[in-house]
């Protein structure tokens, strides 16, 4: 007898096929060769030429690039001599970029991901912070704050980030900042510090951070921004750094006005300085005080040296600390102060190591669970067809949920995976109901039996669905992943796979009956 599949079954198959396409892409990404550009430093030559993150590098100066290793080998073989202008030709999937550069291009690359599924921070590693302004802000004010923080992090050098305004059941608003990959240890200061920079002589302000007073900040150039010296003491190592900034004319005039009336002070070593220091304050706390040399008295100087220091338990960590502190100071000088005081209410930095082990464990748990369910189902029904069908439908549902996640670029985090588990568990339960109901001894048609099974399935769906709704908003959205994947999974189940499964069971029963 020829089996005629219903449209519900066809729909189910089509959705599975689409989900597979959505997960692997077309043509499948795992067949793609090359490396993926993750980050291109803003204002670098490569960036100006149009290379952006998301592109796939295939060739560099004629050398084929198939892996990150190929990439670093190629770069190392090209840049052998320092400070030499080199012609670099980067061929990507969409075009090629040719430019001359002295430095190794500031590009971060990675292997091309095998699937289009994006994992959350807790599996991939990175940092997540939730910050709350001290006062309640309007939506517009939150937007301004959001873009200021984005700008600050970008200026600092973090580009792979997302900043979102979130609100919770109580209507409170927060900023959720998520940063992928390695995170600077100073992240908490970088985001929560208001970053109010003031340079004062006595009680008078000479200049403040931001583009009003500061025209240029020297960064990433050893000629005008560097670690000066390091010392070792009993309590650890200390390093000092300095970098140049250029003031606006107005700020330079202020400097001249304030310094012209100052007296002279001669140090024991014979140094000739003015009798007041210039003090740098960050968020109203004194950071550094510098003596002003005599020849600057009354002068409209635009070049100013900013100094600071860092410390650590050994030389290496002291240098690192100084570099980070310098970068942070440069950032707030460039971006200026945030308009509000902020409080960090949550700060998580997650090691990528954790995720690697977790992925394996979750896969193992998933497989063993499916196997256990298969054994129980088979033990109950002693029927290969029905049992195999249940396993097939459940596995397909996982694929469909993952496909949707890949399609809408949902970040799969641990709560989301728990959500998939719940959806699949409910799916198995529903299928058991359908099989049992359709095999009952009652003297009605198979269609009637399936109808009453679907009544139970839909009723169970509705109750579970509505009970998950509040979770979508509770807890500042951190549990959205769980609520979302569960609801998606349940909805796909009740709309697509359950009707298809019921039809398949009906066809099997009808075939057996004839």
């Amino acid at each position, binding site marked *: 007898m020829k089996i005629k599949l219903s449209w519900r079954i066809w729909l189910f198959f089509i959705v599975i096929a689409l989900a597979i396409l959505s997960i692997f892409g077309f043509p499948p990404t795992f067949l793609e060769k090359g490396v993926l550009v993750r980050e291109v430093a803003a204002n670098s030559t490569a960036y100006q030429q149009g290379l952006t993150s998301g592109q796939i590098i295939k060739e560099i100066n004629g050398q084929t690039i198939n892996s990150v290793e190929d990439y670093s080998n190629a770069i190392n073989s090209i840049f052998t001599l320092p400070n030499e202008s080199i012609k670099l030709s980067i061929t990507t999937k969409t075009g090629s970029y040719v430019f001359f550069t002295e430095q190794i291009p500031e590009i971060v690359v990675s292997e091309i991901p095998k699937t289009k599924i994006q994992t959350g921070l807790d599996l991939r590693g990175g940092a997540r912070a939730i910050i709350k302004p001290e006062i309640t802000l309007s939506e517009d004010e939150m937007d301004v704050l959001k873009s200021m923080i984005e700008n600050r992090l970008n200026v600092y050098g973090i580009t792979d980030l997302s900043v979102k305004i979130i609100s919770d*059941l109580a209507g409170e608003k927060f900023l959720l900042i998520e940063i992928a990959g390695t995170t600077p240890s100073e992240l908490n200061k970088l985001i929560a510090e208001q970053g109010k920079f003031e340079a004062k002589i006595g009680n008078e302000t000479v200049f403040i951070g931001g583009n009003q007073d500061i025209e240029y900040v020297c960064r990433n150039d050893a000629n005008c921004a560097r670690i000066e010296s390091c010392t070792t003491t009993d309590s650890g190592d200390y390093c000092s750094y300095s970098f140049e900034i250029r003031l606006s004319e107005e700020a330079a005039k202020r400097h001249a006005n304030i310094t012209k009336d100052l007296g002279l002070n001669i140090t024991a070593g014979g140094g000739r300085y003015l009798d007041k220091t210039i003090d740098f304050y960050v968020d109203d706390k004194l950071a550094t005080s510098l003596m002003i040399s005599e020849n600057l008295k009354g002068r409209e100087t635009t070049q100013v040296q900013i100094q600071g220091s860092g410390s650590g338990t050994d030389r290496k960590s002291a240098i690192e600390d100084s570099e980070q502190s310098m970068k942070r100071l440069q950032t707030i000088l460039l971006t200026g102060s945030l308009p509000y005081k902020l409080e960090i209410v949550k*700060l998580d930095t997650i*090691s990528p190591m954790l995720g690697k082990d977790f992925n394996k464990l979750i896969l193992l748990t998933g497989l063993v669970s499916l196997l256990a369910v298969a054994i129980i189902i088979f033990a109950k029904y002693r029927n290969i067809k029905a049992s195999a069908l249940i396993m097939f439908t459940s596995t397909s549902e996982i694929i469909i949920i993952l496909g949707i996640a890949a399609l809408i670029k949902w970040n799969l985090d641990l709560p989301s995976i728990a959500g998939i588990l719940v959806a699949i568990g409910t799916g198995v339960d529903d299928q058991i109901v359908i099989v*049992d109901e359709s095999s009952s001894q009652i003297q009605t048609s198979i269609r009637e039996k399936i109808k*009453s099974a679907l009544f139970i399935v839909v009723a169970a769906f509705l109750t579970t669905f509505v009970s998950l709704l509040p979770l979508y908003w509770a807890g500042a959205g951190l549990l959205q992943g769980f609520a979302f994947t569960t609801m998606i999974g349940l909805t796909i189940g009740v709309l697509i796979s359950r009707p298809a499964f019921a039809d398949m069971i009906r066809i099997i029963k009808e075939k057996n009956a004839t």
Partner: protein
Amino acid sequence: MEENQQKTERADKTFSQKFEVAYNKYYKLALIIPILILIASLFYLCSFSVKHGDLINKDITLTGGTSIQVESKADINELQKTLEAKFEEISIRQISNVITGEQVAFIIETSASSEEVIPVLEDYLGIKLTSENSTIEFTGPSLSDSFYNQLKFAILLSFIFMAIVVFLIFRSFAPSMAVIFSAFADIVVSIAIVDLLGIKLSTAGIVSFLMLIGYSVDTDILLTARVLKRREGEINTRIFDAFKTGITMTLTSLAVVIIGLFLTSSFSKVFSQVFTILAIGLVIDIMNTWCTNASFLKWYIGWRKK
């Protein structure tokens, strides 16, 4: 062979017949046991909240504090002593590989803020904690407080939503109340057991109670639909049929939950807590669905016939 089969069939029949007679006689008793357990749980929870100021023990995700997981080996007892001298509430747990049992990392939990703990820990370990070698989660007390209150509110809302939907589906007061009551009993008894076991609940733990609402109502709906909507068969047959289906559902769920618990317990506190609570809840649900709810429905159908 055939004779043997007939014999066992006969034996089966007499057993199920005996069971049915007993069930018809004692089903009201089956209603009493879960209710007694529920009352005992309610009493326990009352005294618990008087003693501890809250219904549950909360962990740092709900009280605020820091959890630091360091991917390296350390003498946990020694570290505990060092940290205890400096911080009030501190607990350290080792994480080991599921297969080899070897220590791969350790987790420190404390109510102190990350800024206070990290320097002390770095001093002790002699390494700098970076995002490469450690995972640090800090939750401020204000956020965790609002988390807790919102989650409580979310559970209440879920329950109300679920109740409304149940009423809309069955449009019959008493059976709907039985479903809702059974879900309520599941949650109350499970919370009591969780407290009794001394489990400190995290955000995820509270969410598992919400998951429990969904799971527990499924079997109740199955039972109620079979008993109320089907016209054929004796009431007992309908209940037994529903039981056969429902218990398979619960057993598959339990199997998954127990496997998950076994595999992830040494690794993830979040998952192991979720799985523990679901396992407790599912077992309690067997009792509340098939004793409480089933007996109630049987009694209700009998009363309606009169």
